[in-house]
């Protein structure tokens, strides 16, 4: 399979995303520049990486959402193309309207950079097919605005349709307020769209994809995609 990793001015996890997909998962991976107006025909999955696109000016992802490449990403997603938004990429997906809700300031007002446990609550997605439902993975978060918010009706729809894919939990998969780093409703760490081709998540799988770092739980997501596209 082949990934396209979008590079915005201010992206800082783009190279990690490339490394995780190309070097760790062993798939083809190329960078896509924010000014590009075309996505190569053979791309299977686009990654919107973490960072501070356009300096996070105005709101996180608000300006990135109108960059030339994003018009192509939106069209790609609407045609069923697979898109993974990580951290700032998740924020950009909500700004673009490809995912519902938005990410507010962390309730603590702190920038949080630490490992978290995530309970995988849905493994019927392309992004989680190689992970067992209910299992727990450990990957890091690094954000100031990761507090997921949506209107109650929207939350109900996400829950009813199993569209919450990752929740902050303890290492045994217990989901409660004590293990909610940022104030997200229902401990939401990652959600997927209705069609199942656009996933946004605040934690960083690409940062734990190389076993040399002592943990490669994040690789499970890229391996899931590999299985899916096989």
């Amino acid at each position, binding site marked *: 399979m082949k990934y396209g990793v979008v590079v915005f001015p201010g992206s800082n996890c783009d190279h990690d995303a490339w490394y995780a997909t190309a070097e760790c998962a062993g798939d083809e991976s190329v960078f896509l520049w924010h000014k590009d107006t075309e996505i190569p025909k053979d791309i299977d999955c686009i990654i919107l990486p973490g960072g501070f696109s356009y300096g996070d000016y105005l709101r996180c992802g608000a300006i990135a959402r109108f960059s030339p490449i994003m018009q192509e990403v939106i069209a790609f997603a609407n045609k069923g193309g697979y898109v993974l938004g990580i951290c700032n990429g998740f924020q950009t997906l909500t700004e673009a309207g490809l995912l519902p809700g*938005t990410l507010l*300031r962390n309730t603590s007002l702190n920038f949080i950079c630490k490992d978290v446990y995530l309970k995988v609550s849905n493994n019927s997605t392309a992004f989680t097919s190689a992970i067992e439902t209910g299992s727990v993975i450990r990957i890091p978060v690094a954000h100031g605005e990761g507090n997921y918010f*949506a209107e109650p009706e929207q939350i109900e729809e996400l829950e009813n349709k199993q569209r919450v894919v990752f929740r902050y939990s303890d290492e045994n998969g217990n989901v409660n307020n004590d293990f909610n780093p940022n104030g997200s409703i229902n401990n939401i760490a990652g959600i997927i769209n209705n069609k199942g081709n656009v996933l946004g998540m605040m934690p960083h799988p690409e940062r734990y994809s190389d076993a040399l770092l002592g943990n490669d739980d994040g690789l499970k997501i890229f391996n899931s995609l590999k299985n899916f596209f096989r």
Partner: protein
Amino acid sequence: MNKYHAIIDITLRKSILDVQGKAVEQALNSIDFQMISNVRIGKHVELFVEAESPEKANDLVDDASKKLIANPIIEDYIITINEVK
């Protein structure tokens, strides 16, 4: 075409907890401003816009606010338009 000066004041919607406002309120309360409450922090945007009339200018700025300047999911905004002489 006339030139208008627009001010867009953006605040988090009332139903959303403004953690920044809360922190500032607590700080104020701790330095002898116990009479202060309900602190809300927002953004103040100013810009020039060319339009045929103040109403048209308001419509344009409203459209821009919905699309980019504010996030209607979480923010309210108030637009003030003044003609630039």
